[in-house]
């Protein structure tokens, strides 16, 4: 039995999802016989951790603070081992622009993109480069904040006239935003779980929108608007290829414990492109990683047990 602090909630836009993930994780840890200390992450985080003195921290905190390495850095300072990826992997994965550069440098396909911070537009006249960017990426273009985990702030620009408003919207979430080529095709999510110290892929989940050309990301994930199929209906060599790319990405970013890599399978070319990696993917009833685990015969309790176990087998050095 370990004393486990479950970090959840926090101040990010994904607070509610995190609270749901955290509650389920707590249940599972209790079933597994651990002494569970839930912490809604706020200004008293360090004080609470100091008082609770957990053997290990289970980070169920999505989005900012949880997925960008902030909380991990604090846990490092305090000498508390924690689940999932270390500081540097979190930083690399949470910043989609950093992650895409790393992937491109190492030959992992990711949709073409250009990223700018506010200063580029305010002080360097980057707006004048927009026509050239649009020419290269071709419409529709996806505009997104560099580091927002949920669907908020992601816009489709179908014409040049849509681009400025989409950029302003994306800047609501981050000082750095990205314009990305839209890959038309199937959406695949590959979940990865460390088993006996080695990352292994779980069955692939496909997100199937119920409406074609449905460009409103925010309502994409309403119940009934998107169907999730697991395992995805893919030819085995293709599934194999997607899994391998996801594993390569996981290793490249230095992830640990578990993660979910989102890919696009381009309709016309069958090419696979990595969009992003989530170092702390959702763990709610309807989240994709638990679905994938279930399809592999791994119960939720078992999944949580393995994620926790990966920390213990990795020892105190969990930095990615």
């Amino acid at each position, binding site marked *: *039995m370990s004393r486990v602090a479950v970090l959840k909630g926090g*101040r990010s*836009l*994904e*607070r*509610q*999802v995190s609270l749901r993930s955290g*509650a*389920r994780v707590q*249940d*599972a840890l*209790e*079933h597994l*016989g*651990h*002494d*569970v200390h839930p912490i809604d992450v706020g200004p008293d985080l360090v004080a609470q951790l100091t008082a609770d003195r957990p053997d290990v921290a289970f980070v169920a905190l999505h989005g900012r603070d949880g997925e960008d390495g902030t909380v991990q850095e604090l846990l490092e300072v305090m000498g508390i081992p924690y689940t999932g990826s270390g500081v540097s992997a979190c930083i690399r994965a949470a910043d989609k622009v950093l992650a895409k550069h790393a992937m491109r440098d190492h030959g992992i396909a990711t949709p073409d993109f250009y990223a700018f911070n*506010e200063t580029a*537009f*305010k002080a360097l006249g980057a*707006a*004048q480069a*927009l026509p050239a960017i649009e020419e290269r990426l071709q419409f529709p273009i996806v505009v997104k904040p560099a580091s927002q985990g*949920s*669907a*908020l*702030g992601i816009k489709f620009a179908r014409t040049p006239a849509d*681009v*400025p*408003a989409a*950029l*302003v*919207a*994306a*800047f*609501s*979430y981050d000082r750095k935003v990205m314009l990305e080529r839209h890959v038309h095709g199937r959406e695949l999510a590959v979940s990865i779980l460390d088993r006996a110290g080695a990352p292994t892929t779980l069955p692939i989940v496909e997100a199937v929108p*119920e409406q074609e050309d449905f460009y409103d990301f*925010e*309502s994409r*994930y*309403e*119940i*009934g608007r998107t169907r999730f199929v697991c395992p995805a209906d893919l030819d085995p060599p293709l599934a194999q290829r997607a899994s391998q790319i996801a594993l390569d990405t996981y290793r490249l970013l230095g992830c640990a414990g578990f993660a979910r890599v989102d890919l696009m399978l381009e309709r016309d070319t069958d090419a696979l492109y990595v969009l992003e990696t989530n170092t702390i993917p959702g763990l709610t*009833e*309807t*989240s994709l990683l*638990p*679905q994938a685990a*279930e399809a592999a015969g791994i*119960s*939720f*309790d078992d999944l949580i047990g393995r994620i926790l176990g990966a920390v213990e087998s990795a020892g105190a050095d969990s930095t990615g």
Partner: protein
Amino acid sequence: MSPPEGGVSPGGSGTTRRPRSTARDIERYAALFAERTKVMKSSAMRDLMALTERDDVISLAGGLPDTSTFPPDSYAALMRTVAVDSCARALQYGPTEGFALVKRCIAKVMQAEGMEIDCDELLVTTGGQQVIDLVCKTLIDPGDVVVAEAPTYPGAIPTFCAYQADVVQVTMDRDGMRIDELRDTLDELERSGRRPKFIYTVPNFHNPAGVTMSLERRWELVRIASERELIVLEDNPYGLLRYEGEPLPTLHSLDDEFVIYAGTFSKILSPGVRLGWAAAPGPILQKMQIGKQGSDLCSSSISQYFVSAYFDSGPWEDYVRSLVEIYRRRRDVMLDALAEHFPREAEWTHPEGGLFIWATMPPYLDTTDLLARTLEDHVAFVPGRAAYVDGRGGSSMRLNFSGVGEDEIREGIRRIGEVVRQQVAMYGTLTGAQPDAGIPRGGEDTWLESEPRAPDPELAKVLRLPAKRKRAG
């Protein structure tokens, strides 16, 4: 049956607490869910709204009256009166239609707004919200049309959706619902063989738009209802909270044959008592009463005795007058702050009463994204899209001035204005245009003078001629 929570020891072996549902379980139950549950708001939006309730956020998002203005001593004395005089009855079930003693209070409130009513024309409900629910329950079959204002009360939308109504929204201007557009809409619906069951309106100090329907339009609306034999559901929670101008007659006082009136104690006494009422034509009221029986048998007896004791304790209008003074100052503070801090590209309404101001940003700003940004600065509002069923309202926001103090209103508006200015400037930088080029001077009410923004033609078709509800696949 799950064991009680208290019986579970953390980490203890042999605990029998049921594990939370798995993905597969959700799927299993999903097959059981009714079609009407599938009409849900985006979860991202729901999660965003949940953040507005954080205690470190200045929330201009709520619709709350300020209950801290009610004297605790009075509350204690009233509850004591209920306990001493009516303990057993207050703790007992009551009649479905409500106690006569509360109906007498309701008659007084309605009289204050110029309506004479017999107690047998009234149904006491659990808040005004239940009136909307019961009217839908009584009148709406799946696919039936409800006509509402654009924007409409955000809290009515889930109710309309739960009864699988097709909601058609009619634009408003400074005089309330545009009757010419209403006529066109009704004509088009008729041509396609569809007759709406009722027209939902908040004529006084509209939530969220903040405008008041003119007298001329009130007459036109009841005339249309009478000619076409359509019901008007008049929702009037704020009528007594008037800060300027002369009161206008309620629709119900102009015509009681086709108007269902919804009233509430929420804004003149307390939303916590959860008491409202309906005044409706007899046959409709009877059906609503049967509907209420199925919903909750009766509204709280304790609350009804409390309200009755309150009305017996002295002039009920005094507290309303004190609220009017407080809210008028807060409204003025908000209007001044808007003029000072919002950029010239923004426009907003000047409510003569009620709780809300509706502000509209330039069309290139999305207020849902703006909210995500202002939450960083610990201030919140309701994004306009929440008041539409068709995706419009993206550049508007509802601002509440009753729920927080004057300093917070000033500071909240300052922070939102700062972000809006930055975003307007950024848009100008991105388009290479002067931010305000070609855009009329903003300020109070100008949004109403400008032509309504051209809706997407496809959307307009949907708006005017809603298709029969498709079954969710």
